[in-house]
């Protein structure tokens, strides 16, 4: 055997052997991003980054300073983060639901429904900076409480953005079905309702997650931008703006960091949900 092996080829180089090692593959998925993160922290904290970007610690404060501001003002930052999360969360839920319903409508009545998909697609192409002030004025009559009406206007913006994303993706999931399965359903003389429940909706689940992967970060970004125009001064995005205009860069960075944390956590939650749910279906 040994002789045969020798004939086939040289022993594999170390790099290849490491690359094929199962436990290294597993570990590297954690170790490499961690190393990159550490590297960034290192060049940031040693001000190497500042010299490369030709900036100073005033414009780009050191990480420990940002951290200490976040710690000192944790109550205020938390309250602002909750307001942003509320807007993003409710808007995401409402928008995704709306988008999915439109997609079902479009899948069942293609001639009528495709038009509505174009309509929400068109809505999504309006820039948030244009949509937010319009909706802000539009919702002035919703409530006499400014906190409520600015919340509603912000949620509406997020809803419209998320609806388009979900609608277009879910429509593909509901219609791009393996040909034989659709034929089989018609052989069974299944009603449209049954085809929808047993075939179309389960088939659309992966597409729903594709949509969510885009719309979860988009909902947070949209919430942050729409806060700029709201009547009530609250939210992570609004604090970034206020602090930058007042030349409080380190505080602005503390809120930028908070926005990053919110985005990353939301994405992690989504990935966890996807792993659990998709296992069940497939």
């Amino acid at each position: 055997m040994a002789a045969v092996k020798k004939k086939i080829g040289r022993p594999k180089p170390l790099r290849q052997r490491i690359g094929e090692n199962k436990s290294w593959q597993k570990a590297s998925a954690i170790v490499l991003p961690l190393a990159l993160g550490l590297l960034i922290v290192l060049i940031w904290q040693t001000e190497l980054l500042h010299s490369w970007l030709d900036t100073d610690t005033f414009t780009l404060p050191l990480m420990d300073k940002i951290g200490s501001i976040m710690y000192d003002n944790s109550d205020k930052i938390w309250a602002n983060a909750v307001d942003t999360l509320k807007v993003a969360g409710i808007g995401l839920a409402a928008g995704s639901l709306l988008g999915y319903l439109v997609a079902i409508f479009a899948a069942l009545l293609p001639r009528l429904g495709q038009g509505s998909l174009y309509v929400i697609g068109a809505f999504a192409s309006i820039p948030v900076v244009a949509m937010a002030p319009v909706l802000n004025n539009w919702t002035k009559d919703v409530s006499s409480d400014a906190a409520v009406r600015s919340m509603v206007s912000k949620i509406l913006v997020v809803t419209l953005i998320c609806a388009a994303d979900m609608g277009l993706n879910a429509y593909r999931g509901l219609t791009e079905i393996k040909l034989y399965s659709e034929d089989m359903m018609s052989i069974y003389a299944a009603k449209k309702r049954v085809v929808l429940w047993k075939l179309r909706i389960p088939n659309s689940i992966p597409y729903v997650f594709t949509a969510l992967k885009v719309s979860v970060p988009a909902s947070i970004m949209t919430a942050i931008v729409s806060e700029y125009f709201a009547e009530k001064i609250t939210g992570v995005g609004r604090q970034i703006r206020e602090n930058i205009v007042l030349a409080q860069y380190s505080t602005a960075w503390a809120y930028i960091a908070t926005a990053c944390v919110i985005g990353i956590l939301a994405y992690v939650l989504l990935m966890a949900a996807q792993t659990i749910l998709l296992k069940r279906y497939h």
Partner: protein
Amino acid sequence: MKNRTKRMMCAITIAAMTIGSLAACSKSDSNAAATTTAPAATETTASTPAAETSVLTSGDIITRAAKSGQVGNWGLGNEYEVLALLAKYGLPSEYLSQDFTMDGFDDNSILLASAMTYNELGLVKNSYDGGYKYGDSVNIIDMNDEGVAMMEDNIFCTKTFAKANPETVAAFLYASLKGWEYAVANPEEAAKICYEYGSSVSPEHQEYMAKEVAKLVSTNTKGEKVTEVGLMDDAAMQQTLDIAKQYVTLADASANAAFQAMTLDDIRDASFYTKAKASDGKFAVEKPEVSIQLKWLPDAQFAGYYCALKLGYYTEAGFTDVKIVSGGGDIAETTAVNNGTVDFGVTWETNLASADASGMDLVEIAQIFQRSGLVLVYKPENFK
């Protein structure tokens, strides 16, 4: 047959949706009108006997507007006088974010709205293009009368720039102050000059602005005449700093400590003003091409600089090119000056002090507006 029924169905649904949405629109409108008028109506009936006997003081007005959460301000550093006023009457320091129109005041969503005497107040009162035509039916609460006035438009640059270019700074001040003197003496001509330089407002409003700005430049917080344009009045500046220390809390603990320890000497340098005043108008400028960052859009709020440019005062003082850079909404004039994008800037004292506390290197070299231009405007009928 089946297709035809489908088509019929479609047509009916579309018709129903259109009618439904139209009906919903009109319904929500009437609802809105009802909700906005209802509280006003109940208030008037409740307080008729009281209104006849007593005149409401500004304290009463502020208290009532603050209790219903309808005091408006733009924020972004413009809010400290309002916060100081709220605190003076023991009210919670909360206000609504006002956009850059007076629509909120017009539709009563803001009962007590912030306005600059030289801009928004004119739009509210006057009936020219863009005005809200309220005339003298609206009343104001003046920050100067309430004792919470803070110093607004000044001229500043970085300490480093001032140290390296003392002649340039003095020359720029000399020409700018001369421009301001002209603008105060001839507001109508000044308005025309501003309009030429790409104004953001109508010629009529420009003239109104120029006249009001002239008042701010030549009257102090106590209502006394000021003859020296650009004078840095220590008492008024100290009051500004004291109010600022009380109401500005910087989230960055070290910056906040620096802010609380700040004195007037940290943020203003009168030597350039003295030098410009004593000068015969001849300077050996180190940097003949300079720029100034405005705090807002080009209009008569900055009349002095436009007049100096148009009438050649900058050229006489030895400059070959002076650029006036427009500001607006989210443009931070402190940042623009600090990072060297522009050489000079116009800002408010509080903004300069808080920027310095968080690590900037700015110094005020002249105080253009001698009194606060901020007022709170209200419709008396909302408080009867």
